[in-house]
């Protein structure tokens, strides 16, 4: 715990120093990023230590605090906090290292010291969100997190879409926070303090208040996590931010929403079955629609942002199945589902950060993220390509990588609930199985498109023809994360067992029942690791066989077979849009792609063009009308606020008169 606090102090001090030294870009970068890397490593070590050590003192800092509503300034790291803290510190260190090189292009043009100050503030506020044991402190950290990330998104504010994206994010974030404020005041009860120890009594009240609290938490925290349909800020803000920030936001910051939801669940006691069902439905909708919208995107970072919605859906499916199992007294299903959901939080953090860093490398080298303008980068950027491939396979849930492990746990929980549990639980499992299967197939399609079109084949335009591999500071974090994807796949059996205490603190289910459930998952994963080992041996063996077979034979190079056509060009390659077109067409009822087509006319046709675009369904059809109506209604209020001083004086007089009359009455 003291290591974690030290890490927070180091990172904050570094951030302030970067702000002070912001006149010298390289000094500010060294201070800001250096402290983030050093503090991140320190904090990650401390959090691993705190997760593995048997239950220590729950709160390390506990000071009386005379803030609003009283309570105490209390920080603590239980299993759940430590688990999320590992991600916060570990990934922020890697992203900071990457950022030192990524931001170099803006040196002299932008205030890098300011950017690092906000970066470090974001890291510290996320750490405090995990550590806070007081609602007031939690909300302050939550708000600091929202604001610092808002300013980070605004880094390239000269691009017209960036301020708009930032604005969307700010509004969404605050609407979510408003609900959290209500939630916390509700849990504090009449005159109670906002200490989490006080919240723990909330469950004993019972009744509909618990369900209302659950709904508030789902919407409030879900806005941050990116549940559909309150995800709309996500595909706007993530592409707008610099890549190392997108990696941190998409990999870690949105997970704070999951943390908040899970933390709230610990105050609500044994859940109702319909809470789990709600999460399963949200998970299935977010997962399937997230991946479908991702398929329809043309911009790599927008595509990745929609995949974050999809993966939050998978996490929520796991939590939902676990919650139904928990509420219906099946600790095995509960443990497997919750552990699967939580492990997917970590796994998604790893591969999604890696993908955003890879996207940043592509942007850095080829100066565009338009998938259809790219191609053939694999041979020019071999490290970026192979790490991106590993992450693509991992996010598609393919064995033997980490994404498969967590999805497998959710599947296992679902199949077990189908096998011998009552209908209410089993049906949740069936929904999860069908949704995961569809999501898995579509995600593989989407990443075959993203990786295949960007890194394979020939360059489709002048972008990237001269691309060069990025430097070591950008490469190293990607290599470490790719190694983590493989390691997470092979260490599955151990990770699941390590999650036992986390699930136990979260649910309060008997520790041995949870351990039994997870041991079954760990056993299955042991077989999977064995299968993976055999798979690697087979791959090596087959490669050797082919090498021996081809030794001494003619191995030639030729053009790609194109049915005898004599003058193929790179522009004749299949594009990402055409690759995804059949699926987009199949789901056009929900995706509603817009197309603009100027048809070629006449015998000797001139220029023609074709364009497709898939705007967000909820953004277009739900939120735009709602906010349009709201802004129309607010506009009427403007008649009161017109800048004529005489009228304002009249308001004052009228108000005073009214008060006077009221007093006289």
């Amino acid at each position, binding site marked *: 715990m003291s290591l974690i606090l030290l890490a927070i102090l180091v990172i904050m001090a570094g951030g302030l120093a970067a702000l002070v030294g912001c006149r010298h870009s390289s000094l500010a970068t060294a201070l800001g990023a250096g402290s983030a890397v050093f503090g991140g490593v320190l904090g990650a070590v401390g959090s691993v230590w705190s997760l593995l050590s048997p239950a220590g003192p729950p709160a390390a800092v506990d000071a009386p605090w005379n803030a609003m509503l009283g309570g105490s300034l209390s920080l603590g790291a239980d299993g759940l906090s430590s688990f999320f803290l590992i991600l916060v510190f570990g990934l922020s260190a890697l992203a900071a290292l990457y950022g030192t090189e990524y931001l170099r292009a803006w040196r002299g043009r932008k205030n890098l010291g300011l950017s690092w100050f906000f970066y470090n503030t974001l890291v510290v506020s996320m750490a405090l969100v995990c550590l806070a044991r007081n609602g007031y402190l939690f909300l302050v950290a939550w708000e600091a997190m929202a604001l610092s990330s808002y300013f980070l998104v605004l880094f390239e504010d000269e691009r017209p879409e960036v301020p708009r994206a930032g604005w969307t994010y700010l509004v969404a974030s605050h609407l979510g926070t408003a609900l959290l404020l209500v939630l916390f005041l509700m849990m504090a009860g009449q005159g109670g303090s906002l200490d989490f120890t006080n919240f723990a009594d909330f469950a004993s009240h019972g009744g509909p208040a618990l369900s209302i609290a659950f709904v508030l938490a789902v919407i409030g925290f879900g806005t941050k996590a990116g549940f559909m349909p309150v995800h709309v800020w996500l595909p706007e803000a993530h592409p707008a931010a610099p890549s190392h920030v997108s990696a941190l936001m998409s990999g870690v910051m949105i997970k704070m929403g999951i943390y908040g939801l899970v933390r709230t669940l610990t105050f609500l006691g044994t859940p109702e079955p319909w809470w789990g069902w709600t999460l399963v439905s949200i998970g299935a909708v977010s997962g399937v629609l997230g991946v479908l919208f991702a398929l329809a995107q043309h911009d790599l970072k927008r595509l990745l942002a929609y995949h974050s919605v999809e993966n939050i859906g998978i996490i929520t499916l796991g939590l939902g199945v676990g919650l139904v199992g928990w509420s219906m007294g099946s600790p095995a299903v509960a443990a497997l589902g919750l552990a699967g959901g939580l492990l997917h939080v970590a796994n998604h953090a790893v591969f999604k950060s890696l993908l955003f860093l890879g996207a940043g490398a592509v942007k850095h080298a080829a100066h565009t993220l338009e998938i259809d303008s790219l191609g053939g980068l694999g041979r020019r950027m071999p490290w970026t390509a192979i790490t991106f491939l590993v992450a693509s396979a991992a996010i598609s*849930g393919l064995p033997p990588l980490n994404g498969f492990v967590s999805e497998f746990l959710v599947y296992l929980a679902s199949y077990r609930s189908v096998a011998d549990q009552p209908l209410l639980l089993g049906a949740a499992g069936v929904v999860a199985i069908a949704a995961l299967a569809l999501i898995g197939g579509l995600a593989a399609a989407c990443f075959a498109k993203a990786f*295949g079109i960007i890194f394979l084949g020939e360059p489709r335009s002048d972008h990237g023809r001269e691309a060069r591999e990025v430097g070591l500071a950008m490469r190293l974090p990607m290599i470490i994360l790719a190694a983590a994807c493989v390691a997470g796949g092979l260490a599955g059996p151990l990770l699941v067992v390590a999650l036992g205490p986390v699930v136990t603190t979260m649910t309060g289910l008997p520790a041995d029942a949870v351990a039994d459930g997870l041991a079954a998952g760990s056993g299955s994963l042991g077989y999977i690791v064995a299968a993976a080992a055999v798979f690697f041996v087979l791959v090596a063996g087959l490669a050797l066989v082919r090498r021996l077979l081809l030794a001494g034979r003619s191995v030639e190079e030729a053009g790609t077979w194109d049915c005898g056509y004599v003058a193929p060009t790179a522009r004749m390659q*299949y594009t990402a849009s055409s690759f995804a077109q059949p699926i987009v067409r199949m789901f056009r009822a929900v995706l509603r792609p817009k197309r603009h087509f100027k048809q070629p006319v006449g015998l000797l046709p001139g220029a023609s063009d074709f364009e497709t675009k898939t705007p967000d369904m909820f953004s277009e059809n739900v939120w735009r009308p709602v906010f349009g109506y709201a802004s129309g209604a607010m506009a009427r209020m403007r008649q009161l606020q017109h800048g004529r001083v005489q009228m304002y004086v009249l308001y004052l007089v009228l108000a005073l008169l009214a008060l006077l009359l009221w007093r006289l009455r």
Partner: protein
Amino acid sequence: MTAPTLDSLAAVLPGLVLAPLLLGVINRTKAIFGGRRGQPILQTYYDIAKLLRKGAVYSRTTSWVFRAGPIVTLAAVLGALVLVPLGGAPAVMSFPGDLVLLAYWLGLARFFTVLAALDTGSAFEGMGASREVQFSALAEPALLVGLAALVKQAAAPSLAGAYAAITPQALWTGGPGLFLVAAALLVVYLAENARIPVDDPNTHLELTMIHEVMVLDHGGPDFAMITYAASLKLWVLGSLVVGILVPVRTGCMAADVAIAVAGLAALAVVTGIIESTMARLRLVRVPHLLVAATVLATLALVLAWRHAA
């Protein structure tokens, strides 16, 4: 959970040796329907042997991904093969949730086949890859929900448990549930193995192919691995169908395995008959077929639930 035993070799060896024969049986059936003598029934073996003796030609556009494609595909399909029980013989590996690993090994194989196709930069191969990912994304729910119905039927979340619970008696008295699962899995088997009515392996137009067009640029030992992997995949998915429809247990394992292999041969004949008597579906109709398979699987699950309740 079972440790690998010598018995489980009986589940794997026939697949390793006999899988290419299934393609021969299908082709012979189609030849008979067409009034031809047809190619030798062992033609796939001859093809593989010939390809293994050849050199290789690689496209200048391709990278290491293209070269890794066939190897990863074959290794992943082999990974799937060791999970499938055959007749009374247990699979080499069996554990709760193994059916998920089976589906995802096949997913990995497909992912790399698709990437290798995109690596050539050919529009034809890109087109095939695009169709492959579309149809397989729809086949996946049919497969996993269909297996969920078997899991419900047997109240055991593993392939071994699910298939052990299927007996001739259960098949005849258990209502239509098992037949619905078999029908759903049959559609998955046809779609995933690029057979009519989803894909025509004998078409001569690159524009109309799915699987065949993706592997156009492979040759020599690479293509031998792809052909072998394709026949193993036919065997693996075929075993899932045959395990339901031919649940004969004589008590003697050798006889059980022999009966299951005969069942696979019979399924190959049925495949040949389907290919001879049906035209290929229009590409926009294929999703309807796959969604119908998912619906059948769901219906089977509902019936299994009623049966259990």
